[in-house]
């Protein structure tokens, strides 16, 4: 197996990009990533394109080939990846496998979404599923986890609000964040209710956007300044066992444990984490699955500021999905973008001092009270 390196990252700000089309946004992010890597597009020998909503919203398929054509990249194998909120990070998982197996020397992952359109309702578990037809929408899933976590562990509304306040404070230091105006816990709890106990400022907004990464083998990395080592790429689907423990998310714990094992690292080795804070309670659950605290203590961890910049383990120094917005095809790539900037010590006022180990965590889909996918990627400089 070859070691795998991250050679370059690119991203356009996530916003409502009303005048732009997906293929152009994705092409721009991809060009930025190539430029960042210094690798000639002609050396890319495998490409992945990730998007969760394009086929549904536009009935448009095999979009990846259109994106890569813009960069003069053709003839090579290109794969179109859909895996709900982990579409982008699943692309990274596949690209890493290809490089490790010697099937590619340079593999790219590009992901994007053009979803700020009236037809886009709330995300759900899939229209043909009974749960969906009984009224399950994604915020409701997380609201029920929050209610259970509060009942079992005494997690409070104020602790959940602390996650949103912290991530927005981080976002104020990040020019790529969509929402950077500071908010207070009172603002969070007084924002319009979505699914009790979650209010609007506890739910990540959707966005249009695109991001890309260039990955390479150790041979190519030797010629590439500033390449970062990909120490682990882990991906688990759910077990869908009944009953599911909704306050201790088995699939989340399982994927995090696998990533630590692959990397030979433990939670205390991490300098920063970008995690899937699609909802405030999600970030709290992920702290526990990642082993940043004991089960049930995630709310306290957030409220004490331990996951804020300046604390022992900063989580979502970028501002997270809550501040960036969530175009699923690009989110997992945007998380790795932030890790790259931090591990190169180029994050400016939000730099985690001396960062050398970063972890990106992403989760997606809903089935039988479980997640359909969870990915964890660990990078070192």
């Amino acid at each position: 197996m070859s070691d795998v390196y991250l050679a370059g990252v690119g991203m356009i700000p996530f916003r409502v990009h009303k005048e732009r089309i997906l293929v152009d946004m994705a092409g721009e992010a991809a060009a930025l990533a190539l430029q960042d890597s210094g690798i000639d597009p002609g050396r890319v020998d495998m490409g992945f394109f990730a998007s969760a909503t394009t086929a549904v919203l536009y009935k448009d398929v095999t979009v990846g080939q259109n994106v890569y054509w813009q960069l003069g990249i053709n003839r090579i194998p290109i794969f179109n990846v859909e895996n709900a909120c982990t579409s982008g990070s699943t692309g990274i998982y596949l690209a890493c496998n290809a490089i490790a197996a010697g099937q590619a020397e340079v593999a790219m992952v590009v992901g994007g979404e053009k979803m700020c359109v009236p037809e886009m309702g709330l995300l759900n578990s899939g229209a043909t599923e009974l749960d969906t037809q009984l009224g399950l929408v994604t915020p409701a899933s997380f609201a029920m986890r929050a209610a259970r976590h509060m009942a079992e562990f005494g997690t409070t509304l104020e602790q959940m609000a602390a996650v949103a306040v912290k991530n927005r404070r981080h976002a104020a230091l990040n020019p790529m964040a969509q929402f950077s105006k500071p908010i207070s816990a009172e603002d969070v709890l007084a924002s319009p209710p979505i699914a009790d106990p979650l209010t609007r400022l506890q739910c990540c907004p959707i966005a249009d956007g695109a991001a890309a990464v260039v990955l390479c083998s150790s041979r190519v990395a030797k010629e590439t300044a500033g390449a970062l080592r990909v120490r682990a790429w882990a991906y688990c689907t759910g077990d869908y066992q009944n009953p599911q423990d909704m306050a201790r998310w088995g699939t989340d714990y399982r994927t995090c444990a696998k990533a630590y094992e692959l990397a030979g690292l433990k939670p205390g080795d991490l300098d920063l984490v970008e995690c899937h804070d699609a909802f405030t309670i999600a970030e709290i659950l992920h702290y526990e699955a990642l082993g940043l605290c004991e089960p049930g203590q995630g709310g306290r961890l957030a409220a004490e500021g331990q996951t804020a910049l300046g604390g022992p383990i900063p989580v979502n120094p970028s501002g997270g999905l809550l501040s960036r917005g969530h175009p699923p095809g690009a989110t997992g790539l945007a998380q790795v973008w932030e890790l790259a900037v931090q591990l190169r010590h180029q994050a400016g006022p939000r730099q985690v001092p001396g960062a050398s180990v970063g972890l990106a965590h992403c989760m997606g889909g809903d089935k039988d009270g479980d997640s359909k996918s969870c990915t964890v990627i660990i990078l070192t400089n």
Partner: protein
Amino acid sequence: MQADRDQQCQPVVPGIFRASSGGQGLELVGGHCPACHRYYFPRPPRCPYCLGQVEEQGLGATGTLYTYTVVRVRPPYGLPSPYALGYVDLDGNGLRVLGLLAPESLDKLEIGMRLRLAVGQLGCDVGGAPCLRPYFEPAPPHPSQGMQPDV
């Protein structure tokens, strides 16, 4: 009137509940694998653990509320606004199932409360036609007593 309308409506998904004529014996219907002794709701086409046949299985009508939420954004499928959802631990089979909660019970919901199954016209099906959905309503704390809750 309500009963007349209900009779004209079809279940949102066929085969997920049953009742004898007159509404007695209402229960959820799922599956049971006789080889693995596992229960399922809804009934899968085959047992994911042994790939064997799954028998149709009544799953009863009572349980305990494990967690819940009241959804306050625009509801899908013409459901009432707001509407409540919960996971319910069914009696007797160990299943934890997602269910709608009675629209009139929103201010009475509490984790651990006893629930019983009801069926009524609630929202529309995927084609937009009014349809029947199963939901859970508050039940007395001791199911054997058969009393109405005094709330």
